[in-house]
């Protein structure tokens, strides 16, 4: 079984979205009591400001955190055109693989990210091909 390689660094080409995506990740990890996320490419330092948080909502960039062998949130609803970024916070590598072969990351080591922009409405089920008990779902409306 082979999948076509998907772009892993789409985020890099759109710096604005990257900053906003990072803000989303920082807010998520702060909620769990530890601040471990690093801004991608050093584009941003410090904690996110209120303006950045608001911007995150406006642009619609979303983050899924991989922690403790699970995707959080497990199910995410986003509008068409949303870029979703997964970040691995575990000590072991994980992957993000669409069940229907729509997207596939390389193995993400600790703190590595993978982004995919959902251009079509639908339900996208995915899993970690290394630990297939880990599953998640993106619903695009």
């Amino acid at each position, binding site marked *: 079984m082979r999948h076509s390689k998907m772009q892993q660094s789409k985020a890099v080409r759109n710096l604005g979205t990257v900053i906003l995506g990072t803000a989303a990740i920082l807010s998520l990890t702060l909620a769990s009591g530890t601040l471990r996320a690093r801004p991608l490419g050093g584009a941003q330092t410090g904690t996110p400001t209120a303006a950045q948080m608001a911007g995150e909502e406006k642009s619609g960039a979303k983050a899924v955190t991989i922690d*403790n062998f699970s995707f959080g949130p497990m199910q995410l609803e986003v509008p068409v055109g949303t870029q979703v970024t997964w970040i691995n916070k575990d*000590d072991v*590598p994980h992957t993000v693989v669409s069940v229907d072969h729509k997207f596939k990351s*390389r*193995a993400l080591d600790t703190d590595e990210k993978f982004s995919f922009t959902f251009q079509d409405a639908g339900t996208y089920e995915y899993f970690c091909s*290394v630990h*297939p*008990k880990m599953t998640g779902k993106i619903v695009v409306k």
Partner: protein
Amino acid sequence: MSDFIEKNLDRDGIDRRGFLKCMAWAGTGTLCLLQGGVLKSFALSDVMHKYVGDLKGDLSFVQISDSHIGFNKAANPDVTATLREAIAKVNALPTPPSFVLHTGDLTHLSKPEEFDTLAESLKSLRTDRIFYVPGEHDVLNDNGEMFHERFGKDTQGDGWYSFDQKGAHFIGLVNVLNLKAGGLGNLGQDQLEWLEKDVASLKSSTPIVVFAHIPLWSIYPQWGWGTDDSEQALSYLKRFGSVTVLNGHIHQTMQKIEGNITFHTANSTAFPQPEPGQADSPGPLKVPAEKLHSMLGITDVNFVRGKHTLAIVDSTL
């Protein structure tokens, strides 16, 4: 501890008595001796003094597992050093093993330099040959092509194979490829068909040793510690008098006897993992530095022809 199963609450087919006893052994070093389907166990310290003479067999080999070269986090920042210690332990055995089995997760991230370090380190093993099966960490980005090229030449299909030594039949299986969403380890139809044919012509008295990375028995499916189609594989082995299944993946020793089949998992040479269900996830177990060595180790297996006996000794680093 009662010797009888009064209530089997989990209905998973695991003999609770044996399971609990084996859990108590984890990391301490224990000899397991199977004679006519009866498991006898001894503390390793006793074995060294009293029983060592009984353990001489026709064949001895060693299992090492889960070296995770490339891992550098808190549980063990230097996994190459602990692999070297495991090698030294093997090289110090009174009888050099005929061969060594590595039951997968040679590397942490399937990187060429990690495979290089592993291969380079194992060159110092005092043994004739090393046999490998891949772990899921060895096949991360290329469906196992790099592993296959380096460690799986002369194998069938996606890397499975068998060989004979001193009258025993050894079977290396691959259960880390083409994993399905929500599922466990996977052997697949092609491999199952090959296995059925591979053992078809063997006499039922032939001792069988099967080795694969992910356990071929259901240890803790919630953490992916099992193989979806292992039942079918094991059904082909039911007629044999002695079957030993050696696995890695869970970074701790466990043993179970079911009919003619003895299941055994090995310690990692890199880092320990939590006991089933005793943590939020099966991620690396962080232990104090002074405790790490007691939770890593190697497995020494002795086979005595005609006795249907495989003596399995786990020792820590």
